[in-house]
C-alpha cells in the first residue's frame, strides 16, 4: 500500500503545471563551456526559456535530450532560449564529446550539487519552463516516451502560438 502511495505521489510530482506565477530562483553566475560566466538574466529568452538540469551519463537525460534538442531547433528563432545545467562536476569532461557525439547545440552551464540543492532537485532531467521575466510556467521531471509532446505544447503556449 505504501509503495502504491509513493508511486502515485511521485507520478503526480513529475508533471506540475504552475498555476500561480512563481519566480525561478536566480542562480549565481555559472561557467559555460566557452569559459564565460552567465547568470539567469543572461540566458533568459525573448519570450520563454527552458532550463534543464542534467548530467551526461543520466539515462533518462539521454533518452529525452534528442527530443529536447529538436524543440530547441524548432523554436529558438521564435523567442525560445534554452540552457542545460550540469549538476555533477566530475562529469564536466564528458560534456564536450557527449554534445559532439549527439549533435547537441543547446547551451550548457556547469553547475554542481549545491546548485541542484538550491532547486531541491531529486532527479534528472528536470525541466523548468520560464516566461520572459523568469516566472515558472511549468516543471517536468523524468522522461517517458511522449513527454516531449507535452513539453512542446507548453513551449508553444509560452511563445504565444
Amino acid at each position: 500500500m505504501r509503495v502504491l502511495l509513493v508511486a502515485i505521489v511521485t507520478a503526480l510530482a513529475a508533471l506540475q503545471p504552475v498555476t500561480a506565477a512563481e519566480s525561478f530562483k536566480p542562480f549565481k553566475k555559472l561557467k559555460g563551456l566557452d569559459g564565460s560566466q552567465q547568470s539567469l538574466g543572461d540566458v533568459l529568452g525573448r519570450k520563454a526559456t527552458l532550463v534543464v538540469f542534467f548530467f551526461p551519463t543520466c539515462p533518462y537525460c539521454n533518452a529525452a535530450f534528442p527530443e529536447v534538442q529538436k524543440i530547441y531547433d524548432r523554436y529558438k528563432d521564435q523567442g525560445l532560449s534554452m540552457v542545460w545545467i550540469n549538476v555533477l562536476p566530475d562529469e564536466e569532461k564528458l560534456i564536450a564529446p557527449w554534445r559532439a557525439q549527439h549533435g547537441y547545440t543547446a547551451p550548457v552551464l556547469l553547475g554542481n550539487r549545491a546548485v541542484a540543492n538550491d532547486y531541491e532537485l531529486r532527479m534528472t532531467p528536470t525541466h523548468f519552463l520560464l516566461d520572459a521575466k523568469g516566472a515558472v510556467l511549468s516543471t517536468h521531471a523524468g522522461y517517458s516516451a511522449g513527454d516531449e509532446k507535452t513539453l512542446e505544447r507548453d513551449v508553444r503556449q509560452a511563445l504565444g502560438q
Partner: protein
Amino acid sequence: MLGLRPGAQSPPQVSSNLQGRTLSMSTDQLTVAATLAPLQLPPGGRVTLTAAVTPKAGMHVYAPGSRYRAVGIKLAATSPFRLEAPVEYPKPGLYTFKPLNEQVPAYDAPFRLIAQIVLDTSKPIVTPRRPLPVTLKASLDYQACDNRFCYLPESIPLQWTITSTP
C-alpha cells in the same frame, strides 16, 4: 521563489551507531547493511567490508560494464587504507531500458559487494606498540533509477573504528 517541485531527497537513515560492526542504512532508493570484519587488524592483515544492498521496489542500480554510474565501494581519499583487490560484484541482471531500447547490466534485487581492505603501506603509518584505534572511512556510491526517473547519484558514508594491533 520556487520551492520544491519533485520532492526533497530524504537523508540516509542510520539505524545503528557508528562504532558497531554492521551499519544499516536506508535511503529513498535502497537499503544497505554494511559489515566490517574483523575489527582488529594485525600487521599485514586485512579486513573485509561486505555491503548487502537491497534496492527498493521498482528501483535498479547500475553494475560495472554499463555506460552509466555503477554502484561501488570507495575508500575515503584520506584513508590510511587501500583496496587489496578490486571490489567483488555478483553477476548482474540485464535491465531493459525501454526509452533507448538498450539492455544494461544492473541490479534490481538484493546483492552483495565485497571489498578486501588493507593498510596502505605507501602512506606513513606508525606501527603501534600497543593497540591503536584507526578510523576506516568508506562510502557506498550509486545512482538509482526506476521506470521513469533517474535519481541524483548518492554517496552513503560508512565508518568504523578498528583496532590496529602490534
